């Protein structure tokens, strides 16, 4: 209604309209309007009027002034980046930054020089704790590989914390990147593999040979964790890498036949729960009058060293699931 009014832009309705739509009329137009208003009404009536020529002249003058202002502003900005003072300041800044970095590096190196030499026998690292682990580790935990016994038995609480950190990391990635089917009703969801090299022959052949080997090696590392180098985390990472190779070669549709979201949730949560149960058995039994009823077995046999074998399996499941979940969530926002 009020748009018919020729002073619409400066009227209250115009201001409200601008406020709602968020569009500002161009500054030039307002400038023109100012001129128009200063010259009184009805200057737009006839273009042939002599007054209008003056009006155009005035407009051109205004335009010129604005242009000059803009050019001056640009020059000022240019001077700021190329001017003498600013050049000097930039150079001083660079020198100061390098100096600060050098000072910090020198401090750190000086600190390192105060540390004991690497590999000396009387270092503070070689205290009674390490000696105890090496000397009595096999009798007390039943593991041939002392590292696994140390990680999962003596320092089981640390490893439990690490596994929880993995669980929380996977959950956080899920919160950030998970896409439900309802939220994406377009092509993106269907084209989850669209931008990958489709059915790459070389990749598929190599994966056919490599994936079983990687999977068997991962399972071997997990199950043999208490006898040979490796353990839950390494084996789980190897199995996860094998799963990722399989997915990138054959796609998510084939993987979903044996590893989908349901299996992921069940495996991950139950592995974590079983792990916590095993470790709490270690925490509460074997001291203060409670007997540890789990036999350690003969060191070197595959079924020995009490609960460590089971803890290895649970940690391996957890880590493999996490690795695969990271890849799948990054790749298509779904497991």
């Amino acid at each position, binding site marked *: 209604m009020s748009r018919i009014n020729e002073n619409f832009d400066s009227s209250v309705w115009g201001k409200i309209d601008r406020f709602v739509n968020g569009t500002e009329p161009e500054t030039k137009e307002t400038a023109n309007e100012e001129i128009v208003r200063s010259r009184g009404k009805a200057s737009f009536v006839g273009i042939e009027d002599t007054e209008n020529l003056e009006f155009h002249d005035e407009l051109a003058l205004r335009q010129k002034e604005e242009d000059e202002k803009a050019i001056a502003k640009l020059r000022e900005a240019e001077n700021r980046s190329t001017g003498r003072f600013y050049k000097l300041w930039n150079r001083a800044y660079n020198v100061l930054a390098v100096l600060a970095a050098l000072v910090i590096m020198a401090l750190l190196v000086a600190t390192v020089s105060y540390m004991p030499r690497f590999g000396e026998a009387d270092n503070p690292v070689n205290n009674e704790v390490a000696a105890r682990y090496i000397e009595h580790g096999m009798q007390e935990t039943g593991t041939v*590989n002392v*590292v*696994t016994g140390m990680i999962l038995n003596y320092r089981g609480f640390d490893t439990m914390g690490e596994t929880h950190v993995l669980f929380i990391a996977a959950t956080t990635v899920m919160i950030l990147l998970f896409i439900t089917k309802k939220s994406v009703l377009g092509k993106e969801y269907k*084209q989850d593999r*669209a*931008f*990958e*090299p*489709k059915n790459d022959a070389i990749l598929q052949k190599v994966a056919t040979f490599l994936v079983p080997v990687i999977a068997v090696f991962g399972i071997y*590392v997990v199950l043999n964790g208490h006898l040979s*180098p*490796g*353990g839950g*985390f*390494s084996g789980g*990472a*190897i199995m*996860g*890498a094998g799963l*990722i190779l399989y997915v*990138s070669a054959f796609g998510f549709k084939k993987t979903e036949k044996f590893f989908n979201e349901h299996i992921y949730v069940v495996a991950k949560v139950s592995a974590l729960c079983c792990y916590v149960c095993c470790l709490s058995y270690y925490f509460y039994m074997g001291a203060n009058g409670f007997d540890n009823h789990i036999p350690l077995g003969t060191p070197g046999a595959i079924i020995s060293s009490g609960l460590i074998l089971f803890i290895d399996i649970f940690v391996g499941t957890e880590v493999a699931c996490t*690795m695969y979940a*990271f*890849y799948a969530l*990054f*790749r298509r926002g779904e497991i």
Partner: protein
Amino acid sequence: MMIFVALLLGFLIICAITACLHKSLLASIVIFMAYSSIICIIWIILESPDLAITEAAVGAGVNSVLFFVTLKKINSISDKGDRQEVADEQN
């Protein structure tokens, strides 16, 4: 053996510096994979095979794959060929 270790350590430093300074992100990731592989061998020489297995699987394997996927997510790897292929198949 000493020469071998010195060579590995030299490669390690070169990889670390080039991974930081290389302009292409893709090349940086590949150099980072090489860094992980070298440090994996160094772990074996330092007689800690447990760490070496984990480094090879996580550092050189899963970590780099995640980096590649992220690069693809932010469209840093050009996939014009793939898109063309998909478009051809759909037609």
